[in-house]
């Protein structure tokens, strides 16, 4: 029996990522990861890509992890956990292990969208029984806020600094969640820790699947986003309300949009909360803001159109979700 998704019940569960780790105060990543771990009611073994989450939680001789955990390198959390899972299968076949164990990998956007994309794609295609969780903070934070392919259009980072000629990141974000959906794996989703029930439901679905699953979780970084340390959750909510970060899932290929804001807020509501977009609000940057809105609208419209197709095909309405 899984723990009901009620705060009262959940708060009684043991925290598997304990306090005392050294991620920055107010960082979104450990909030997201703790929600992931709380959602699980089966024993987990985790692999972690190099990045903020990894370095700050296992400073020898301490570890914040109460589950078996392995970090091997930056670009290979998916390959590493695929090996762990293969050993599990082998030992199970030989009767050397009979416990039910689930396998999970954590990677930042750099370790997932960029350097780890090949190993992730390979592991998903091979069909390992694993859940890959990307905590997306939109840059290489651990090495000092360099751009990644997840960095939003216009953001100021240390490798695409807002200058006189170039105004932050010139390219738009890679849509990794849809790339993962294109792998035709049983479960793919996108969520945020502000929508904790959505997040935990998705983690449960991902863990229930017999095969690969991928979840992309927005994880605000106050250092990189240039925001205060007390509003990570609020930023996630604004990200969903502006449709900058839509909540959706693909179950066996079928898309459902899980949250449609009653009133879609302009993306500037999201951008203006963060110092990394400050330069976009200067009087001569109107075009850039317009571009940012168009990028968001384009992705959101595409998503709605695809969801509508699915609704039509399966004869369900996609209202009220």
């Amino acid at each position, binding site marked *: 029996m899984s723990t009901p998704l009620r705060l009262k019940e959940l708060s009684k569960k043991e925290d598997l990522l304990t306090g005392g780790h050294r991620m920055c105060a107010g960082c979104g990543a450990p909030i997201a990861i703790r929600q992931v771990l709380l959602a699980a009611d089966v*024993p*987990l*073994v985790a*692999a972690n890509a190099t990045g903020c989450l*990894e*370095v700050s939680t*296992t*400073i*020898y*001789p301490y*570890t914040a*992890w*109460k*589950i*078996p*955990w*392995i*970090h*091997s*390198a930056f*670009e*290979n959390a998916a*390959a*590493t*956990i*695929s*090996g*762990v*899972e*293969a*050993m*599990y*299968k*082998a*030992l199970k*076949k*030989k009767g050397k*292990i009979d*416990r039910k*164990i689930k396998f999970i990998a954590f990677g930042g956007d750099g370790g997932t969208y960029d350097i780890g994309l*090949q*190993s992730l*794609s*390979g*592991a998903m*295609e*091979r069909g390992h029984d694993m859940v890959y969780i990307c905590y997306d903070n939109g840059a290489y934070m651990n090495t000092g806020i360099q751009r990644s392919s997840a960095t939003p259009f216009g953001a100021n980072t240390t490798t695409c600094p807002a200058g006189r000629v170039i105004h932050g990141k010139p390219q738009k974000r890679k849509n990794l969640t849809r790339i993962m959906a294109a792998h035709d794996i049983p479960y793919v989703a996108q969520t945020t820790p502000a929508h904790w029930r959505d997040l935990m439901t998705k983690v449960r679905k991902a863990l229930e699947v017999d095969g690969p699953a991928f979840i992309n979780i927005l994880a605000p970084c106050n250092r990189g986003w240039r925001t205060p340390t007390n509003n990570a959750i609020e930023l996630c909510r604004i990200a969903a309300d502006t449709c900058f970060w839509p909540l959706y899932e693909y179950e066996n290929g079928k898309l459902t949009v899980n949250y449609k804001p009653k009133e879609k807020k302009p993306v500037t509501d999201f951008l203006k909360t963060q110092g990394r977009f400050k330069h976009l609000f200067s009087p001569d940057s109107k075009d850039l803001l317009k571009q940012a809105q168009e990028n968001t609208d384009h992705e959101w419209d595409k998503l709605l159109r695809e969801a509508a197709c699915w609704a039509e095909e399966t004869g369900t309405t996609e209202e009220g979700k």
Partner: protein
Amino acid sequence: MGKKLAITGNQALAEAMRQINPDVCAAYPITPSTEIMQRFASFVSDGVVDTELVTVESEHSAMSACIGASAAGGRVMTATSSQGLALMWEMLHIASGMRLPIAMTLVNRALSAPINIHGDHSDGMGSRDCGWIQLYSENAQEAYDNIFQAVRIAEHEDIRLPAMVCMDGFIISHSIESMEFLPDEVIRDFIGEFKPKYPLLDVDKPVTYGPLVLPDFYIEFKRAQHEAINKAKKVTLEVAREFEKISGRSYGLFEPYRLDDAEIAIVLLNSAAGTAKDVVDDFRNKGIRVGLLKPRLFRPFPYEEIAEALGDAKVICVFDRADSFGGFGPMYMEIASAMMAAGSSPLMVNKIYGLGGRDFMPEDAEAVIKEMTGILDTGKTGTLKEYIGVRE
């Protein structure tokens, strides 16, 4: 005793892997080692082994999956060559740093550029400092025998480090030779059950693998690794003695060939040593005191033992089938260190040969030994490092 068969080096290693029946293999194809995994994949498909085969999308992922699988707590193997090993380089250090007893067959092949699929030792020598135990093999029989011993050495309680068994690409991997196989049950008893240590799959005792270790502890980790790998010398000899009991074939840290009383010694690794042995015989028949030393255990390097074996030689020629551009060949550096540390000062020259699979012929060995007799007479070495067998 086992049965004799005419077989290629790759087939012999695939057969060895069938007999080992590891829990997990993760590998990626690359010439000339591809055939090992291809054959092994048939064993998996036919249910002859119960290995989980992870057909990864790159060698980087192959070694990453091996690391995950080994840390999970079981016996793990892989196979590669050249660019594949180069792509694994980052992960090779991580496998040894985590003290994971993974066993690998490395079919030695030249490194690009220019791209070349043939045998030389640049790949193995390029991973010299990765913390892996390295055993080199002259022929298919030795490669076959070495892989079982490598598993035992790697998994030994005092060591727990990854090990690779090297054999020459094409020259051995693709040539047929007659060799002896040991019966399956003999191998099974020899390698024994895998004993997991701190397995990730023990969810009741969670462990953290691969933490961040800062200057306050990092060097202690490395010192422990240094101590562990150095113990592999003793363990290699113990395992070899046990192996002799089941096979009748004896192995040491290296093979001395007619070295006693030799004034001229040549040092040669792998298949070329076989070629040169005949030439050594010819010179011995003419009364010239020449001998050969064929290293087997390259990491850890048995400095004292080799210095002792070469102790009487006045002239030593070290052959390298790999170059450290701008330096001496890697084998030369080791032999020179061994002699220097032992307080000997023979005349030493370095010949780079056979890169990219260029044949090493008896005439090549003959010419070099002749040159060494000249050095012995004059006491003068001339050029210390030289390429041989090159078109001019």
